[in-house]
């Protein structure tokens, strides 16, 4: 067994009993990046020397009988949207190409204090706006299962890094499906926690009422170890939830007898590939065999979720991205020798013309439109009301059931270029994940089979702060199935 292919749990055990060192483990990951990342293009930058230095410190701690917990010495990959001191954080945008944040994101800080080894920053759609990593200013990440296909997005670099076994886990962000959809398309586990469970401090914002940070890993249990470390209240994020974080290890490999699993009928049928449906139904059947009660439920307003999202998210985007003005930081037309803005207005409008890519411009302008005088009530306010109806639908469903199970993505990975010229088609690839951000509940994607040799994911949804249910159902499913053990051909040779 190659070290870079270990799970966190296995590696942590081997580190503890002295079978391996963090330096060996980190080198194995760096070697895998060296070997495969020219093809996969998951990373925007790799911090090789720094990773080895941190690994040495971890080994030194262990020699002295100290460990900072299960992530001490474990190498991970970080989506390029978290403030990391002494490094560039670009959000895969030209406007932040050389930006070095003068502060540290809470998630990065908590992982550093837990002893996790940061390997580098991974590719994403520009400012996380996309479902394929194709809107990145720098590169398009490839799906390790088929290099002609997308890894999903926006956290496609982080998902591909774990799928190609370049890192034992990775961190992503999810505003409408940006963790769950790439997890599904890359055949790994990804969890978007409850809104407010993980601090957003230092996470470059896209849509502040929807954004949430979460981990990718090979197994459900591994994601629980990472979430345990990064979750919890933070004084620097007033929207973070104060409720103490439960001990997630208590939810792993427990029985699910009498657990009520809801199947929302609106998540099946038109637009969802029949093989995907078949695989998710087979997974549900396995949960029934393990003692779960399967109940059909209905979320009647779910058909409006995508429309609600494409009013609210752009509105928040237009406000959040107003900070990129060519003056405080980032690309500026004024200091670009090929441009010649005459006044402040032209400095703003040219810095944003040359600093932002198409999808970012599209969403900033769409958001500006729905918030502008005369349209605010018809679009923004209306969408916030329909969002209330969606919340009521989920509240009603969770009176009947403990969790919901659906497909994560309507289809497996699509071809690079297939949807990039048609924004509305691209938006529809998030149709099964997007409502979950609007209602703030947790969701997880787990591998549940293959369609034409491409991974398919099922989505498990819990009520607010219901992460324990996701870990319970997910870990039990992985105890009785082997889909998560399959590896892409690219890493076999």
């Amino acid at each position, binding site marked *: 067994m190659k070290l870079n292919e270990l799970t966190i749990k296995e590696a942590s055990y081997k580190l503890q009993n002295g079978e391996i060192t963090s330096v060996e483990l980190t080198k194995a990951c760096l070697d895998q990046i060296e070997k495969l990342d020219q093809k996969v293009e998951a990373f925007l930058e790799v911090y090789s020397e720094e990773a080895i230095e941190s690994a040495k410190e971890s080994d030194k701690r262990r020699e002295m009988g100290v460990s900072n917990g299960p992530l001490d010495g474990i190498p991970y990959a970080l989506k390029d949207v978290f403030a990391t001191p002494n490094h560039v954080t670009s959000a895969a945008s030209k406007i932040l190409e050389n*930006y*070095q944040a*003068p*502060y540290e994101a809470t998630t990065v800080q908590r992982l550093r204090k837990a002893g996790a080894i940061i390997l580098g920053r991974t590719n994403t759609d520009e400012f996380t706006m996309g479902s394929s990593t194709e809107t990145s200013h720098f590169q398009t990440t490839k799906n390790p299962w088929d290099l002609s296909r997308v890894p999903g997005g926006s956290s496609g670099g982080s998902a591909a890094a774990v799928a190609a076994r370049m890192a034992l886990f990775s961190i992503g962000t999810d505003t409408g499906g940006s963790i769950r959809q790439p997890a599904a398309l890359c055949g790994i586990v990804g969890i978007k926690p*409850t*809104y*407010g469970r993980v601090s957003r401090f230092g996470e470059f914002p896209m849509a502040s*009422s929807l954004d949430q940070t979460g981990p990718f890993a090979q197994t459900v249990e591994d994601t629980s170890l990472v979430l345990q470390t990064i979750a919890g209240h933070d004084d620097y994020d*007033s*929207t973070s939830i104060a409720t103490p974080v439960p001990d997630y290890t208590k939810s792993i490999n427990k029985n699910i007898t009498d657990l009520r699993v809801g199947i929302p009928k609106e998540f099946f049928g038109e637009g969802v590939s029949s093989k995907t449906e078949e695989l998710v139904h087979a997974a549900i059947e396995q949960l029934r065999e393990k003692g779960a009660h399967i109940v059909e439920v209905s979320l009647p*307003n779910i058909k*409006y979720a995508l*429309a*609600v999202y*494409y009013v609210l998210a752009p509105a928040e985007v*237009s406000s959040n991205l107003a900070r990129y003005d*060519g*003056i*405080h*930081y*980032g*690309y*500026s037309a*004024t*200091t670009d020798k090929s441009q010649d803005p005459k*006044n*402040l*207005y*032209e*400095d703003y*409008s*040219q810095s*944003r*013309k040359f600093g932002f890519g198409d999808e970012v*411009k*599209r969403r*900033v*302008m*769409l958001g*500006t*439109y729905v918030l*502008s005088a005369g349209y605010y009530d018809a*679009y923004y*306010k*209306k*969408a*916030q*009301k*329909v*969002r*209330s*109806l969606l*919340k009521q639908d989920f509240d009603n469903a969770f009176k009947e059931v403990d969790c919901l199970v659906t497909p994560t993505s309507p289809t497996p990975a699509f071809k690079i270029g297939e949807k990039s010229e048609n*924004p*509305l088609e691209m*938006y529809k690839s998030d149709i099964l994940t997007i409502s979950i951000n*609007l*209602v*703030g509940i947790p969701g997880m994607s787990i591998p549940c089979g293959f369609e034409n040799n491409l991974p398919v994911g099922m989505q498990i949804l819990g009520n*607010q702060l219901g992460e324990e249910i996701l870990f319970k159902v997910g870990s039990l499913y992985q105890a009785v199935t082997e889909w998560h053990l399959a590896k892409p051909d690219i890493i076999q040779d």
Partner: protein
Amino acid sequence: MEKANITKSDVEKIAHLARIELDEAEKEKFTRNFENILAFVNELQNVDTSGVEEISQIAGLKNVWREDEAGKSLSNEEALKNAPASEKGYFKVKEIL
């Protein structure tokens, strides 16, 4: 699906408000994009929301307070570290008028 009525001059107005300079080809493209996307989101107009309150905070948090005490913050030097242009400890901008 109701057709959204977006003209090139609407796009020019939005681009002005958003402070994004567009060339002619971009104006044409975004006009078409917005027609499609707005036609799609216009289905919201069919939902009966009479008596429904809009949601403002999904986690149910109300006002979050802290003591009014100064904490640590960025130094002037750190705040200006990434500035494209600065002078005497200030951000430097082009003339406004």
